[in-house]
């Protein structure tokens, strides 16, 4: 081995704690990059393959009833490559041994052959025999949660009729990779499932012989989706079509897309923070080492080593740290990627989901990691390598200090001399102070961005479950009924309070923009459901006009006072011109609202309800479930406490762990930055600090100079970190919002405070750790050296 390389290895060994500290920060960046990009790639490739193999449709339409011949007409629309017409109905499921009623969506299987689109993928057993009306297949997740397998019996209530059925197989569907009940946010496999049943049996039950109520289209390459949707809407409107939509409003697809977008955001935002900090750390630590080795550099050059040889020597040293960081980061990222992917496997039902990041993310991470350390050291290396041998061998000039504003400030405030030493050191080496300042700030930012996720969920949960929805349960009715049903509902077991609601599908038009949604009534003085002002407070709403959620108003390009055309998509299908009377905020979905009186006046109908919100005595719940299972008029039951518990559990499982990891990484930045900065301080100022000890300063007082500077910079960096964290959170927030979910943005004071406390704690720990080195400084030896 060449002598210079041997020196390299020994130098690296000598500064190993600092090398490891930098390598760890670098490893965090590399790990997040490999984890996020790899998971992103695995998820999107798996999704693409699954969609293609199971022929996931491009356009989806729901209608009341249309003859089969209409499906053939739909096939004739320009750009349509495949058509699948079928029946989809809601059902109540009575599971053996389960008190609560579960709800399900029942989907038809064609009488002959496979569906042309949205093929169910068989996981076990077999698909129902077309000749057997009592056979069904279940979604795998629902069956697993309910411990059902092929051969077992279930009973469902479909269109008011009870069916005793036998399970033949378990399947997965591209339409329900993320399987959530309408209006929910997280999958609840115990209470919501998917059932595939022979079309003939369903048609008979719902009186849909020779007809269909759902249509899916596959588009040819290059087809104009908007034109197809417009043509389809025209075709289906006489048959109760409530507006077709593309994948962009298909629930499962939208949630998957949101997740991919979030991963993309994390992959593009987080790694740069870690990589930039490690570049500055390399610059700080190796810059200092190179500064100490000026004499040796001069000597090497005097011996005849070229500038290139010398530069290469130090670049190799940074590469050593880089290799360590990248290797560590790749391993950590690989593990985290496997773990994240497994976590996704719990929510997204794919036939397989394997973390296989491929060469791309690995190479990208490795190259970026190495570029980071090399870039970090380059300036110091070039400056040192360019020195002439004579210049390099001469001792570097002592640091110059000048009197300035700081002195007036310090003397005016009567600061102690040890405090002045801290302040002057910061002013004299502003670059080094800036690395500590921004490094610690970055650490705070990462933590704030992590905690923001909790805050958003907490605000969301508060809005949805405390401020807006105060009911215990919501019953969906199969058909709209006279609002006398509200009084009838009070007779159901355990019901203490009942309020009715009515929703109807509409299309809103404002100029060239139109949007399909539902129009729901609100009743003045309602106790159980309330709408919120844009500020998140219960709103008092006008008795006339349209009330729109802020996002929907934004999409339509309207403000309060504007006029919107409301096209009713059922019944009379008439269109009304209505003034926008108020804007509200809504986290889940984007329904439009209108006061109960005004809505039925426009519809020229007596008041009706198709939903019942209930407050329930928990003791009466089992009897209520039994009643729901036996009442054909009830199409579904949502227990809000279950929904809340499910969301809470999801957050517990996924988010808590993810944020714990990220906040751990965030604190590691503070540890790495402060540790390195304090080490450099200690080695450069050992002489000065030893002098203080000799003069009679105690260990604690001398430690103050070292720890005080680190902590002062850390404390000053907190507001900057908060600001950065807010910015990161705003960017992350974009990934959280979709057509279906409009989460409120907010970061609590508690989060800001916790981020500050954790980071200051980490910084203090690192500084105190280094301070222990002061105890090892040999006072006598330190005094023998020339400053």
């Amino acid at each position, binding site marked *: 081995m060449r002598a210079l390389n041997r020196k390299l290895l020994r130098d690296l060994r000598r500064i190993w704690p600092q090398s490891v500290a930098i390598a760890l920060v670098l490893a965090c960046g590399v790990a997040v990059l490999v984890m996020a990009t790899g998971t992103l790639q695995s998820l999107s490739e798996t999704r693409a393959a699954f969609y293609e193999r199971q022929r996931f449709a491009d356009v989806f339409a729901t209608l009341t009833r249309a003859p089969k011949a209409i499906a053939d007409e739909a096939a004739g629309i320009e750009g349509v490559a495949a058509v699948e017409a079928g029946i989809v109905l809601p059902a109540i499921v009575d599971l053996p041994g389960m008190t609560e009623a579960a709800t399900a969506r029942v989907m038809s299987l064609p009488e002959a052959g496979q569906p042309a689109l949205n093929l169910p993928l068989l996981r076990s057993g077999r698909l129902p025999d077309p000749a057997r009306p009592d056979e069904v297949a279940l979604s795998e997740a629902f069956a697993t949660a309910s411990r059902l397998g092929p051969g077992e019996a279930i009973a469902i209530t479909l269109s008011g009729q009870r069916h005793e059925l036998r399970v033949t197989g378990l399947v997965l569907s591209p339409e329900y990779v993320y399987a959530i009940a309408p209006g929910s946010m997280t999958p609840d496999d115990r209470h919501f499932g998917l059932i595939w049943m022979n079309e003939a049996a369903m048609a008979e039950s719902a009186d849909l012989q020779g007809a269909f109520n759902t249509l899916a289209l596959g588009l040819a390459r290059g087809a104009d989706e908007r034109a197809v949707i417009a043509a389809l809407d025209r075709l289906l409107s006489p048959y109760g079509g409530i507006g077709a939509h593309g994948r962009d409003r298909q629930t499962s697809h939208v949630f998957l897309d949101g997740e991919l977008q979030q991963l993309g955001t994390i992959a593009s935002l987080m790694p740069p923070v870690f990589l930039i900090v490690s570049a500055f750390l390399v610059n700080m630590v190796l810059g200092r080492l190179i500064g100490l080795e000026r004499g040796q550099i001069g000597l090497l050059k005097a011996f005849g080593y070229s500038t290139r040889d010398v530069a290469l020597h130090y670049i190799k040293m940074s590469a050593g740290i880089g290799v360590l960081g990248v290797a560590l980061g790749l391993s950590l990222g690989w593990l985290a990627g496997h773990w994240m992917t497994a976590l996704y496997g719990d929510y997204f039902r794919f036939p397989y989901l394997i973390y296989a990041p491929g060469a791309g993310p690995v190479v990208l991470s490795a190259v970026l990691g190495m570029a980071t350390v090399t870039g970090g050291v380059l300036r110091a290396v070039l400056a040192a390598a360019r020195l002439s041998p004579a210049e390099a061998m001469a001792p570097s000039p002592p640091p110059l200090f000048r009197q300035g504003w700081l002195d007036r400030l310090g003397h005016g405030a009567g600061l102690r001399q040890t405090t002045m030493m801290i302040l002057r050191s910061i002013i004299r080496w502003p670059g080094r102070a800036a690395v500590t300042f921004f490094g610690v700030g970055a650490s705070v930012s990462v933590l704030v961005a992590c905690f923001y996720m909790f805050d958003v969920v907490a605000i969301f949960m508060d809005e949805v479950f405390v401020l807006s929805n105060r009911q215990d349960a919501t019953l969906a009715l199969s058909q709209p009924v006279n609002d006398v049903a509200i009084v009838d509902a009070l007779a159901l077991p355990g019901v203490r309070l009942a309020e009715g609601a009515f929703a109807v599908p509409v299309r809103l038009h404002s100029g060239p923009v139109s949007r399909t949604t539902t129009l729901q009534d609100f009743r003045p003085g309602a106790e159980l459901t309330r709408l919120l002002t844009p500020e998140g407070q219960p709103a008092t709403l006008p008795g006339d006009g349209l009330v729109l959620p802020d996002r929907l108003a934004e999409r339509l390009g309207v403000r309060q006072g504007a006029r919107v055309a409301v096209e009713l998509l059922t019944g009379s299908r008439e269109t009304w011109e209505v003034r926008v009377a108020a804007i509200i905020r809504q986290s889940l979905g984007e329904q439009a609202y209108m006061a109960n009186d005004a809505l039925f006046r426009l519809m020229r109908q007596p008041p009706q309800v198709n939903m019942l919100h209930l407050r329930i005595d928990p003791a009466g719940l089992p009897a209520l479930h039994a009643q729901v299972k036996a009442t054909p008029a009830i199409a579904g039951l949502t227990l809000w406490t279950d929904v809340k518990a499910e969301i809470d559990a999801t957050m517990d499982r996924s988010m808590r762990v993810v944020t714990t990891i990220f906040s751990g990484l965030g604190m590691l930045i503070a540890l790495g930055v402060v540790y390195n900065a304090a080490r450099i301080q200690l080695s450069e100022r050992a002489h000065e600090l030893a002098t203080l000890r000799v003069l009679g300063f105690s260990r604690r007082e001398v430690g103050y100079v070292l720890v005080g500077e680190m902590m002062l910079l850390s404390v000053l960096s907190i507001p900057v970190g908060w600001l950065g964290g807010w910015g990161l959170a705003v960017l992350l927030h974009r990934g959280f919002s979709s057509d279906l979910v409009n989460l409120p943005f907010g970061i609590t004071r508690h989060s800001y405070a916790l981020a500050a406390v954790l980071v200051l704690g980490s910084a203090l720990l690192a500084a105190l750790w280094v301070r222990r080195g002061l105890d090892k400084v040999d006072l006598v030896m330190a005094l023998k050296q020339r*400053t």
Partner: protein
Amino acid sequence: MCANPTPPQTAPAPQVVLRAEALAKVYRTGPVEVHALRGVDLALHQGELVVLLGASGSGKSTLLNILGGLDRPTSGQVWFGGQDLTHLSDAGLTRYRRDNVGFVFQFYNLVPSLTARENVGLVTEIAANPMPAEEALGWVGLTARMDHFPAELSGGEQQRVAIARAIAKRPGLLLCDEPTGALDSKTGITVLEALVRVNRELGASTVLITHNAAIQAIADRVITMADGRISGDTRNAHPVAPSKVSW
């Protein structure tokens, strides 16, 4: 030959400030043992100026470090007044240095980021009964330069700042390790003049280490060390002013 702790019977007995008995110091580096001190007995009296002479490795710095509370003897004892230094904790030694000892080093050991006044301020802020920093700098003739940083001062000026810093606490003991070692003779003499002045006028017992034999002429007492032992201890009846010394 050992120092005699008993003062002459005829003169009024000057008070003993510091007393050492049978001091030994052994440094161990692996299997190698270096005996830096081999049984030193010594008494320093109130206000006397002692020059400690000796070749490199004779043990004079080790002795000074132990007297100043920077190091502990391997065996033997040291008393400052009635206080036994050998059994003091680390905090106790810090307290001893803080309240009683002023140090002057060969390389000045000023804090580069503090001005002359602030360097002296370092000590006046923590000492029990200090004089104002300005007064201490006045003693060494640096009133006009007190707002300069060390890098803006000459070597002699820096050493005088170090002296001002050492005396500002009104120490009972002033320990100077080669204070002129890094200076040319002319500058060295101004530093010695400052030292003699503060010794005479403030009454601090002063020990000055040097390997420069010419300096012994300014002392009240000259102690010579060789091979870890005191090899000579003589009184100088007629100390001369530093300006009369040259090397």
